[in-house]
């Protein structure tokens, strides 16, 4: 089974700085920082091989990608003690590109993923800052 997803954060990582070709520059360095004990918000990297697969297979993903992403996601939820989509205390994600070499501003980034009409209420309640929650929501859309 090909490993398509590498987790990082909380003092450990499945990847390292030497895996730049597979994880991209950003992903490899996030993994490396996690390994040396620097506080990094937990997350996971989907490899450049998935990108290659995506373009070679008519814009589809490998069959087992979904399972690996879900597993990594649960891993983060456990580390953070919060859940993605939780209406009371939602875990939110950023999604960023990361090629082998930096291509500043060339590709897309999405922040605040996981906000919806219900989770925004939870974010407001937990942070005690309603303005922050709605500002985040409008930035997300």
């Amino acid at each position, binding site marked *: 089974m090909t490993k398509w997803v590498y987790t990082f954060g909380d003092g450990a990582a499945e990847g390292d700085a030497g895996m730049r070709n597979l994880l991209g520059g950003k992903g490899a360095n996030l993994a490396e920082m996690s390994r040396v004990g620097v506080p990094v918000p937990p997350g996971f990297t989907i490899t450049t091989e998935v990108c290659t697969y995506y373009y070679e297979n008519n814009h589809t993903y490998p069959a087992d990608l979904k399972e690996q992403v879900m597993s990594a996601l649960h891993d983060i939820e456990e580390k953070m003690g919060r859940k993605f989509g939780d209406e009371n205390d939602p875990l939110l*994600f950023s999604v960023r590109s990361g090629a082998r070499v930096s291509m500043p501003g060339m590709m*897309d980034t999405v922040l605040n993923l996981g906000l919806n009409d219900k989770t925004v209420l939870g974010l407001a309640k937990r942070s005690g800052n309603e303005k922050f929650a709605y500002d985040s929501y409008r930035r997300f859309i």
Partner: protein
Amino acid sequence: MYGDVVMGVHSSKFEAVLDRVREENGYKFDNQMTVEQLKDVVREFKEICEKDGHPLPQDPMDQLWGGIGAVFQSWMVERAIIYRKLNNIPGDWGTAVNVQTMVFGNSGDNSATGVCFSRDPATGENYFYGEYLKNAQGEDVVAGIRTPQPMTCLVKERRKIDLPCMEEEFPELFKQLSDIRAKLEAHYKDMQDMEFTIQDGKLWMLQTRNGKRTGTAALKIAVDLVHEGLIDKKTAVLRVEAPQLDQLLHPMFDKNAKKEVLTMGLPASPGAAVGQVVFSAEDAEKTVQTGKKVVLVRVETSPEDIAGMHVSEGILTARGGMTSHAAVVARGMGKPCVSGVADLRIDYEGKFLKVGDTVIKEGDMISIDGTTGQVMKGALPLVLPEMTGDFGEFMSWVDEIRVLGVRANAETPLDAKTARGFGAEGIGLCRTEHMFFDPHRINFMREMILSNTESDRRKALDKLLPFQRKDFIDLFTIMEGLPVTIRLLDPPLHEFLPNKREEQIEIAQQIGVTVEEIAARTAKLHEANPMLGHRGCRLGVTYPEIYEMQAQAIFEAAVSVMKSTGKQFVPEVMIPLVGTKKELDMMHKAVDKMAQKVIAESGHTFEYKIGTMIELPRAAIVADKIAETAEFFSFGTNDLTQTTLGMSRDDAGAFLPEYVQKGIYEADPFASLDQEGVGALVEIAAERGRKTRPNIKLGICGEHGGDPKTIDFCHRVGLTYVSCSPYRVPIARLAAAQAAVRNEKK
């Protein structure tokens, strides 16, 4: 964000809503909006998505897969494809996707976000550099809406900033971040560029990578890291790129100075130049004699302008590309040059130039930046590059590591001194024809060319002999026994004759012949294709007396310097444009005979070497035979490229840029050696030459001698030395050291 990035709703639709809300309430920034207004904005945004047929997914998992898909899609958007093309990034590398827990720097006053470098990326100084914003998201730091705060009290004091620094505002987190800075730098063994966010009093690192830096910083950081024991000298040598070293060698415009760019051309030769505008090489020389500095402005330049170019601070031309005469000569001289300024109109008669409606007259000040191609009206302030102790130390490591020798192409005493100052280990190419363009002797040269008989030619050559001898005495004296390779006359003779009627009249009077004679000789010497015409050793075959005179001057000069200094050295005589062994044999015999004659007449015995340029494919192919006579080869890769590619450098401007753009040639083959084609000939010649003469000295003396990629090639092929223009010598030394380290690692 999600609306436009993932669902393709045009971002202007969202911006229109924000613009309206700001306008209605008189807000300057989005963060002035109230909760109720934000709720309305959210509602309107969702409506926009729905109307567009892309309702915002409410299921977080749908959102996540939408985001992942968008990142993969963005790998193939046009701007990313163009960026990859410009930066030589293969399209099949693909991108990874990083999904990461959001942390918020804008969730209150106990939150912040910032960007920092472990050392100053401009100067390389070892202190914590960077800035941050309290209660803000990353994009706010970049957007410049609020003034970011400094990291440390040191910077705050230095720059007299009135805002609190992180050291004061978050002392404990600053301490934690400082430890991380030290840890990451020690781990990566290089200066780091980091992003961080503080959410509710907890520090998170979002990114680290090796930081981009200026040439000054690259050098200082490399030297400091060696002193700190983090890297060894070989690694340090790889940490400074050739263009960065180049930055350190030329005067620069003060970055803090205000400037208004008048127009742009090609950045043909790096550096900054400021001076009065002059429109001819003669005026340049006259003006400089009065103690003023000039920038020479021409439609294009020609070999006759050399002296004027030499005294100018910089050169600006309306026509010509990166390999035009102006560009090549300027780089050779280390002069800033901006070439090919399309909207530059020059009126030689009226002595003014025009760009759009702006008129600049002769004598007005102008500033040109050969690093960026910018042209500015007026005199911008210049700062001199600092050649600090770090530079010297770094270059000593470079010399320890490299295997290739580095020589310079030089013929004037000034060039030779400059070359030695920059660390050249000899002269690899002394072009004797440049010595004849001097105003004091060009007419003797012309007399020689206009002579109808050998005896008249010899009379004229006798007048040139003392000048040549003096030239070589100067060179040998400056070089103090280092090798000096002197190339005998190479260009076709018509290059020395004037084409314009007025000049022909003037010269006719000066040397006592009729204008008709000059015109007739000029016409007779005219060639359809001078590059392949009556030049190089073909002159030596048809007019042996020219090379005889030159050889006599070289050997007499050598004897004179050896006698006066009491030190022996080995002059090297080089025959140009050889294609067959017989040609070289004839030239060798003549030069040898002259050497014996000088030895006999002076009573001083000395060694000398006779070698050849390899600049014709035939010479490369029969190198084994040529090496029976030649004691050294010097690859003249300018001509070897022209003759191998069947491409005239002067005419390539019409198609070569498109060739490079379309990837037919990877790079301009006149700037970086075509390794596959011309390089193969170099390898063949080196191999065959060594077969005949195992210890044969092999050098390269074309423009390529200063190109790092070509230098790497020369190292791999095992050449003895590269020779380049004096100002490229430090870069060639660095590139040679880098080639040694890189190829050792492989």
